[in-house]
């Protein structure tokens, strides 16, 4: 886009994705300086370069300039194009790292996005594909992004360090988003989960399930944890196992938690029993934080509220994560949107910690590049 707007300037590599994503949506160029400037190994890393390449693939006419040392990045966004694509993600980060960016952009493409992503499906750093599938997709549906083609499918599982996983993400395009009023999360009616194991004994998954159930059964009887043991070429290149848990409420809120085993050759071996117990405890922590959107998806919800029609949107959240706080600042600088923030103390109710009610009026963003049929 040949806009004459001033570019925004930032320093450091943290929050790179949200800056690039918001730049793409708002059409404002960004300049990021001092990327690991004081590091022994300065400049952009492979996984960040891969994210920039992915942005280049889904847009048309983006201009990207990186200096020789890789410490300065200038990005002038093009138009979101979409279509059928493939991308090899860096194995240094999970596919979730890339998927989080795509979830923000996919509804606003010219053509519906259908993308094959290859890399690490589950790791210890990023939200896994399982959790995003179970929590982020229902959230997008609340905003009216739905359809037959709305899907996130895990074809192959890949654990770090080798990777070798593959997922297919397809998302329909929307012209405008519905405003949301999520002020009551309801009550948790069931807990679902997925215990996976690749290139290790399938018994690992069963051991995880037993220990996780042992903790969660004290709270609610309706628990089902699927076991998923992929074999052969579908099991990726490295061994590993893990668990993802999702609590579903009566009002359609999904709260997720997950844990994965240490990558091969890094750290001590983890017992599946311990992993199951710790993951169940993480889910309880997430329930304690509460809200209508879980801590990982806070920023996605706030972004879609900002981009919604010119109407009031409300969402009740648990405590804001540092990532979300920075995201709110970025929303202010890219879209001039400030949220109304009200803290709701927990009081006498036995419903976990303090909550925050976020209110804003959408900017009325509409997808002008969407083709009419």
């Amino acid at each position, binding site marked *: 886009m040949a806009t004459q707007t001033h570019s925004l300037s930032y*320093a*450091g*590599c*943290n*929050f*790179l*994705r949200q800056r690039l994503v918001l730049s793409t949506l708002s059409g404002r160029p960004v300049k990021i300086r*001092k*990327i*690991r400037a*004081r*590091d022994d190994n300065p400049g952009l890393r492979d996984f960040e370069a891969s994210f920039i390449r992915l942005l280049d693939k889904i847009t048309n006419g983006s201009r990207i300039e990186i200096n020789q040392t890789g410490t300065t990045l200038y990005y002038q966004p093009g138009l979101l194009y979409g279509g059928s694509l493939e991308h090899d993600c860096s194995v240094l980060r999970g596919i979730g*790292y890339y998927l*989080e960016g795509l979830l923000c952009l996919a509804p606003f493409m010219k053509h519906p996005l259908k993308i094959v992503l290859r890399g690490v499906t589950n790791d210890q*750093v*990023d*939200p896994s594909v399982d959790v995003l599938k179970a929590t982020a997709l229902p959230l997008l549906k609340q905003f009216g992004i739905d359809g037959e083609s709305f899907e996130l499918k895990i074809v192959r599982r890949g654990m770090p360090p080798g990777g070798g996983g593959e997922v297919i993400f397809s998302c329909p395009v929307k012209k405008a988003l519905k405003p949301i009023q999520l002020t009551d999360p309801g*009550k*948790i*009616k069931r807990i679902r989960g997925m215990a996976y194991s690749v290139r290790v004994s399938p018994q690992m998954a069963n051991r995880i399930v037993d220990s996780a159930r042992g*903790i969660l059964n*004290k*709270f*609610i*009887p309706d628990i089902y944890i699927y076991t998923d043991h992929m074999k052969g070429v579908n099991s990726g290149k490295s061994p590993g196992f893990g668990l993802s848990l999702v609590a579903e409420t*009566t009002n359609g809120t999904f709260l997720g938690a997950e844990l994965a085993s240490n990558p091969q050759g890094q750290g001590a071996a983890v017992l599946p029993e311990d992993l199951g117990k710790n993951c169940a*405890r*993480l889910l*309880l*922590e997430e*329930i*304690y*934080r*509460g809200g209508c959107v879980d*801590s*990982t998806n*806070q*920023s996605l919800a706030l972004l879609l509220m900002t981009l919604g029609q010119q109407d009031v949107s409300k969402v009740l959240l648990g*405590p*804001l*994560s*540092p*990532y*979300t*706080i920075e995201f*709110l*600042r970025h929303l*202010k600088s890219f879209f001039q949107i*400030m949220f109304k*923030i*009200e*803290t709701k103390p927990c009081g006498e*109710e*036995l*419903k*976990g910690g303090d909550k*925050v009610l976020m209110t804003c009026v959408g900017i009325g963003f509409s997808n002008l590049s969407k083709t009419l049929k």
Partner: protein
Amino acid sequence: IREKLAKPLQVGSGQKLESENIIDETSDIEDLLKEDDDYKEESNYSIETSGALKWKEDLSRKAAEAFLRQQQATPNLRKLIYGTVTQDNEDEDTREELGGLFRVSQPDRGCKHKADSLDCSKFLVEAPHDWDLEEVMNSIKDCFVTGKWEEDKDAAKILADDEE
């Protein structure tokens, strides 16, 4: 009647402006609320004479209450998010000079560290609860369908009411 209503309102807004200058805001607002109570008593008789202006009865008190509520609820979080962020100092200022020619570089400054740290959306649990304790387990009891329901949503209660 107009004059009477206008006068206390002016006093009220004057107080409000002053309170912004004084650091101890809450005590000031309490004063303001007290004053409004006085005002209400004094204007009571004028309301008796004209019912038409009943909705104006305690406008300034309502305003003061709303103001107070807002003050109590948000200031910290809002300030934390949208307040002026301290700009990271340029490196030149913080470096020590060595022999008037070289400068000692100090890479591990707090803000620098934050700017280059890991870009991850997960919100790690810093101080985990001990979920084996009965007390801690009870703190989220009502988040589940098995817990206590609100009066208006409790199926058993609604059924009982229907039968009556």
